[in-house]
């Protein structure tokens, strides 16, 4: 039976399932009290500022409906920006404005919207429409990041992001999520974005999948997805590990973007990182997580831990 065969294959490769991730990793290593700092992007920003990790520049904030007027004034002075909820889940409620023509804004996906639509969207954010638990939220306006030239060939719309899963301060696995036309410019794997696994040691892509199926070329540009080395890989690993240390979470995903001018920038931290990263790497997380646990020692420097993660990732491959 094929279900049984898949079951065995997953178990043999040490693929982490949702139940085990929740029970043995997120529930065990991520204390609930630390969630607010990662669930709220404003708090994440503060935390990163403290640790000297670059984040997208904050341009405007509205936490109450009466502050929307000021927000409108602010965005009318900007050419491009991103409007997002501070506590949004799964990339919901994010509006990327590429260009402004007077009082109209061209958003990702080619649509053009007016300033009223924009402030209505911001009002929805404040009301908690996109918030994790429906609580009132804060609308934030950030600078829009540009796709790094090294990734232009394999990006159609939107900006690719890079995720590093960090377990107990040691990087375990990494991938990059490349938006496609199908995903509507969003780096959401469920909607058809491409995920490419990254070799922790070199920062080069190794495998790629789209909606669970392995692929080799970008579906829109036709360019090869494999063996592309991401620029600034070492600093990215460092940011991920240091940010994870700051959050106090034991099992966390760090999402970063390589900006064309600023280089690596940390977007957000995720306390419940998804499992698709395993498909993108064609490798299970469990052997690496267990190796990290076995080799865990207190008071190691960031560099030591990165080296340990790289060694474990390389060892798990054999």
């Amino acid at each position, binding site marked *: 039976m094929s279900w049984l065969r898949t079951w*065995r294959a997953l178990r043999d490769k040490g693929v982490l*399932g949702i*139940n*085990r991730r929740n029970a043995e990793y997120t529930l065990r290593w991520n204390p609930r009290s630390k969630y607010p700092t990662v669930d709220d992007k404003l708090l994440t920003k503060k935390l990163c500022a403290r640790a000297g990790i670059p984040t997208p520049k904050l341009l405007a904030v509205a936490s109450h409906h009466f502050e929307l007027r000021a927000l409108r004034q602010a965005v009318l002075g900007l050419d491009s920006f991103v409007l997002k909820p501070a506590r949004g889940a799964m990339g919901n409620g994010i509006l990327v404005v590429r260009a402004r023509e007077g009082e109209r804004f061209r958003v990702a996906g080619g649509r053009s919207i007016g300033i009223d639509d924009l402030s209505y969207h911001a009002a929805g954010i404040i009301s908690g429409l996109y918030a994790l638990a429906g609580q009132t939220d804060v609308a934030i306006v950030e600078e829009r990041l540009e796709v790094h030239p090294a990734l232009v060939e394999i990006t159609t719309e939107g900006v690719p992001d890079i995720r590093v899963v960090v377990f107990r301060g040691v990087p375990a696995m990494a991938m990059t999520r490349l938006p496609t036309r199908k995903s509507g410019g969003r780096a959401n794997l469920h909607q058809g974005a491409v995920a490419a696994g990254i070799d922790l040691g070199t920062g080069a892509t190794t495998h790629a*999948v789209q909606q669970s199926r*392995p692929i080799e070329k970008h579906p829109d540009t036709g360019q090869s997805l494999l063996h592309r080395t991401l620029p600034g890989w070492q600093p990215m690993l460092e940011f991920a590990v240091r940010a994870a240390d700051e959050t106090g979470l034991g099992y966390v995903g760090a999402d970063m973007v390589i900006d064309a001018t600023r280089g690596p920038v940390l977007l957000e931290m995720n306390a419940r990182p998804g*499992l698709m990263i395993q*498909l993108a790497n*064609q490798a299970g997380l469990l052997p690496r997580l267990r190796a990290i646990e076995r080799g865990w020692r207190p008071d190691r420097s960031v560099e030591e831990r990165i080296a340990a993660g790289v060694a474990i990732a390389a060892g798990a*491959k054999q």
Partner: protein
Amino acid sequence: MNRRAAASGLALVLLGLAIFAWKAVVYDLPVLPTDPEGLWRVELAVSVRGSGDRGSVRAPLPSTGPGQEVYDERSAADRLLFTIRTENGDRTAIWRGAFNGVHDIAYGFRVRLEPIVTPLESAAGVPVPREITERHGRASREFPSDAGEIQGVLSALALPPASDVAGRVRSVYAMVAHEVATSRGGPDDALIALANRSGSERGKTALLVSLLRGAGVPARPVLGLDLGGGSARETLWAEAFVGGVWVPLSPNGAFFAERPAHLVALRAGSMAGVEVTGAEAVASRWDALREHLRSEELAAMMVPPNRALRATSLYRLPVETQTALRLLMTIPLGALVVAVFRNLIGVPTFGTFMPVLIAFALRNVPVYVGLLMVVSTIGIGVFGRLVLERLRLLLVPRLSILLCVVVLGVAAFALLGRTLETRALFSGVLFPIVILTMLIERFSIAAAEEGLATALKRAGWSLLVTVAVYPVLRDPTAEYLMFSFPELVLCVMGVLVWIGGYTGYRLLDLRRFRSFANADVAPS
């Protein structure tokens, strides 16, 4: 699964099962719902129209007697005076007054029925009391036992000697049951039925009584109700007085010397049903419903004589609390189904317990009606939301407007249910409208954010879980078990501990990661 979770789960399950077994084995509480046969609630509804004249409505009332126990009688009639007259042990309900316009009369009773089996002995030496012979042995206009045709048939039957009463009854019964056809709308008169060799139930009963009396056996007709087949129908049968007891005989061969438990005798000795004078009867009908044991009867049966068990028996609660708790006690089962779907299968749904709540609210209607209601209410809501979107309203007022739209939609369902005479639709008014409004909002956001396909898929999964929860909440056996044995909730909790401690793959994990199984050959 970690060992502690496995052990705690096992402990809970075993504890629940132990108490359950204690109650079931030691105190002999029935494990399955027991409903004694033959418990009915019967109702008579008569509508009468009059134009100001005084008049009366008479209806034969059943009495407690062999094979039937009548209790809990109730009567309701607007603007009429109600009395019960008892004559020769027969009871008649009388509603009288000035009939003006339409009057609705209702009368109901509960009855416990048992089959009657009468031994048919030759009964030679048993003397027949004189009043029986006088009342039930003589010829009358209705039962012309002295008519020439009757006497002719009796002599042609070559009856056994008069001392063999049982033999005579048997012969006469066989003749009427098998040689005279039963036809609906056939002759009601004994002699015409005999001449045609075909008669209505009434005609054949009259013939049977006439022939028995002609053969020297006291006999009487009985007007009764046949509760078989889920409705109540007026019916007639005959009774012969043999060996000191009345022996029931079916005019159409359905029973002989025994009365099945679906028959209620309303009156013996007369075939007259509901009579109306001074007004016009518009409608008259009997209805019957299978009854359950009343709560105090059930409680007497279900509360074990142990102090600890008595203290924890839910049957000791007031009836209204019991009704509410009965429903509530099935919710753990619904939650268990949801946990299986979410954690073992990995189905994404809108809201964790939304399916349970929807299934709970819809448990009174058939599943297709329920689904239709959910889908169309969501449809109305999503459409309403699309319209509202243009107004750019703030979240809470917008949700509240949606709530209003949903309330109106539910009201429309109720109206529709009324015009269609469909109680199923009507009873869905309990609808969890607030939950539904949230569902509409979540559906709309999912559709906008993740595409209509994803939203529809998740809505489909949610409905699937709803449909899976549904039978659990509707099943009377499950309800009975959970209410009678609340310790089973411990078992449910134990299983939930196991599910919560299960760290293996979910069924849909396998589908998501299936490319791992195919990548066996790929070099690493």
